[in-house]
Structure formats: C-alpha cells, structure tokens
C-alpha cells in the first residue's frame, strides 16, 4: 500500500489525485500503524520547515519514519517541504533541526537579480536518470523560497538553474525526493511519479 502522510502541511489532496490518475491505490494517513504497514511512503508538504518538523515530531511520525525508511528501507518519496525536511538543518523561519537523513542545510535563496520565491516552470538537469527516464519536455513546477544544500554531492539526482545550481531532486538508496511538485507538473511530473512508484527498487 502506498501511503501519503497527512501532517497538516498542505497539498496532500493533489498528490492523492495524481496517484489515482496513475491508478495507484493509496491512502492519506497520520496513523502510525498504517505507516508501519505501508510499502511506499510519500511525504508531501507545503509550509515552513519548522512547523513541518514540529508536526512530524509531535505526531510521532518522525520516529516511525526513521525506522521504516532508514532501517526497513521502504521506498520513500519526499515532495517540496517533504524533501527539505530530510536535511539536518532548516532555517524557515528560524534555525531548527530536520530529520537528518541527508547531511546538509536548507537555506534561503539569496541571488542578486533573481526574485524569491523561485516560482514557475523550470527545466532540470538530470544527474541520475533512475526516475527521470521520461523523455520529452523536462520543465517542472517549482515554488520555494528555500533550497537544500547537501554536503554529499552524490545524493543529487537533478539540479535546476536559478542564478545558481539549485538541487531539484535527491536520491539516496531507497530515498527519492523532489524540490519541484511532480503532482503539479502535468505530463512530465506524472511520468516521474509513475516511474518511481512502479520501479522495483
């Protein structure tokens, strides 16, 4: 069973809609047993880093995720805030700790001449094509004011140019996460979701 984690941080309905479109059975949940019994875990999210991690901690989800993803190696997809929360450290709106699965920090954009948030459709540069073997247009929808800066560059799966090279996706063993919103990125976005969900990793 694919589960979408509901931790009070937005856009879950859109993710579910995209999965149903792909004919992937799924449930939205914050129930810890349901998360433990899942096969694939999706952590979406819109909102501030601090509120996101606080919600995960308070609901007891962080602990379950650590075990299911890091120890039991369940397939995991993070989207937007759901990617950023994997870092050691966030800064939105104030410095705080993340899940710490990816060494690195989530920092505010600060590039002269570029408006913040980075908002709209931007083409990515693919570094690992495990889930990006989608052909055709590779514009995806981005909407974020903070971006992840991993310490280990080999976790980077795709980057996007916004004055600097920004991490667009990361991949580490069973963990895949995107800064862009695949569920809002029409055909290429659905293709990435499909590729991830139906792969046998």
């Amino acid at each position, binding site marked *: 069973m694919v589960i979408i984690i509901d931790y*009070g941080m*937005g*856009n*879950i*309905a*859109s993710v579910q*809609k*995209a999965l149903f*479109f792909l004919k992937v059975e799924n449930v939205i949940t914050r129930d810890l047993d349901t998360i433990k019994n899942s096969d694939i875990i999706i952590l979406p999210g*819109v*909102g*501030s880093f601090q*509120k996101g991690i606080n919600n995960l901690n308070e609901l007891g989800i962080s602990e379950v995720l650590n075990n299911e993803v890091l120890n039991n190696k369940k397939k995991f997809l993070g989207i937007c*805030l759901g990617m950023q929360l994997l870092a050691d450290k966030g800064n*939105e*709106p104030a410095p705080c700790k993340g899940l710490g699965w990816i060494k690195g920090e989530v920092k505010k954009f600060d590039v002269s001449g570029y*408006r*913040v*948030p*980075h*908002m*709209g*459709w*931007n*083409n990515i540069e693919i570094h690992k094509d495990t889930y990006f073997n989608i052909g055709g*247009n590779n*514009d995806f*929808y*981005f*909407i*974020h*004011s903070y971006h992840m800066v991993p310490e280990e560059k080999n976790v980077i799966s795709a980057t996007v*140019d*916004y004055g600097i090279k920004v991490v667009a996706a990361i991949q580490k063993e069973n963990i895949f996460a995107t800064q862009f*919103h695949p*569920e*809002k*990125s*029409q*055909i290429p*976005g*659905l293709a990435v979701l499909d590729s991830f969900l139906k792969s046998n990793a």
Partner: protein
Amino acid sequence: MLKVRIIPVLTFNGFGLVKTKGFSHPRMVGNPVQAARVYNARGVDELVFVDILASKQNRKINLKLVSDVIKECFMPVAIGGGVKTIEDIHDLLKIGADKVILKTIAIINPDFLNEASNIFGAQCITIAIDAIKKDNEYFLYTLSDHEILLTDYLKKISSFTFGEIILTSVNNDGMMTGFDLNLVNLCTQYFKVPIVVSGGGGNPNHFKELFKASNVEAVAASSIFHFTQYTPRDIKLAIAEIGKPVRLIKEPPH
C-alpha cells in the same frame, strides 16, 4: 531557465463565471469546472480562480466548488475570495490549492500576511493589488470609501512577508486594449517577489509589449481567452519572438 508564466483567470460571482469590465458590468461566461477542464487539457502553466464577490458579500468561498475546480487541474492553482483567517487558508490548501490570494485582509491587517507566511510558507501567500487611476494618479481599489494612494500602500506592504503579487489595473480590466505599463513599472521597483500582471491583454501583441517594457515573471488574462480565438499557447509563441523563455507543449486539437 525559469519560464514566463501565462495564467488564465477565472472570476466567479457565487453562481457562475463572469467577466467584468473595469471591475463592473459582469458578463456571464460559463461554468467554472468546465473551464478548468479545458485549461487543463491545454496544459496551461497555472490557473487563478477568484470569487470576486465573496468579501463584498461577506461570505466564504464555496469549498465544494473550488474542490471540483481543483480536481480538474494537474497544474498549480491559486484561489482567492473572502480569505480572512488561518483556517480559511488551511481549508484551501487541504483541498489542493497551491496558493491563496489575499486582498481585503492584507489591506485591513497586513500583519496577517506574516502570520500566514510563518505557518504555510510565504510561497503560497499571494496578495492581490488592484490599482485604479484617477486624474493621473494611482489609488488602491478597495471596498471602503477611504482613498489610499497606491505608492503609500506599496511602500507599506513591501515590508511584510508574502510570496507573490497579482497586480491588476482596474481601468484596463476587460478592456482588451493593452496593459498599463506605467503601473507595472511603478510597482516592480518595490518588490523582490514575483509579480503577475493583469488587466488589459486583448491580443498577443499586448503581451509582447508588456514583456518588452517590464521585468515581470508572469501575466494573467481572462477576456482574451473568453472572447477571442487566442489561446495561452498563441501568447507564448508571440512572447517567444522577443526572446522570453516559455514552456511550449502540444495542445489537443481545437
């Protein structure tokens, strides 16, 4: 490279879609869910849906209808109209809105913008600035009789936290005679967030003129899609001619 966004706007009056001229004279233009379905099929960059009478009539936006509109969309959707509380925003994000558009509350209580941004992230808080030109001076268009100079409001609001601005010329709304470029250039200097320009786009040349004359990220339009044969793609092809990056995808046959 980040692409310029072309955003169709659906304005709703509580019953059906309407298109105004100068923010009045509403003309019925159809059904919101069907319109959303068509724009989704065309693969538009984004969609804006606003209940233009919700604040005036002091009612909440119809969440069931908004949910039905969003269900049609595999692209980002911004929703506005009568959004006043944290709970309102939460309700909209929960049913799949990517951004909420705040106008009246931003004027009455701009601190609310910071509060909302801290909870939901600034990226999903869009503010609408409607400007009306009287005797060569720009004013904020509001529900109250109290006149606010546009530049006063821009200075004030620029110190608060939000993620995007939809800037509309009330005078040019629905006129299809081109954008108010002076207004656009007056506003861009105050902000570091993306600005969506709205009001006046009637043919692809108007859009070319806008992107030639200003430094904005996006444009919103409504009448051109309701009342002419032009599609968002036609506008993209036109602005690509002046070197602006656009996202071109195949559209279904007409």
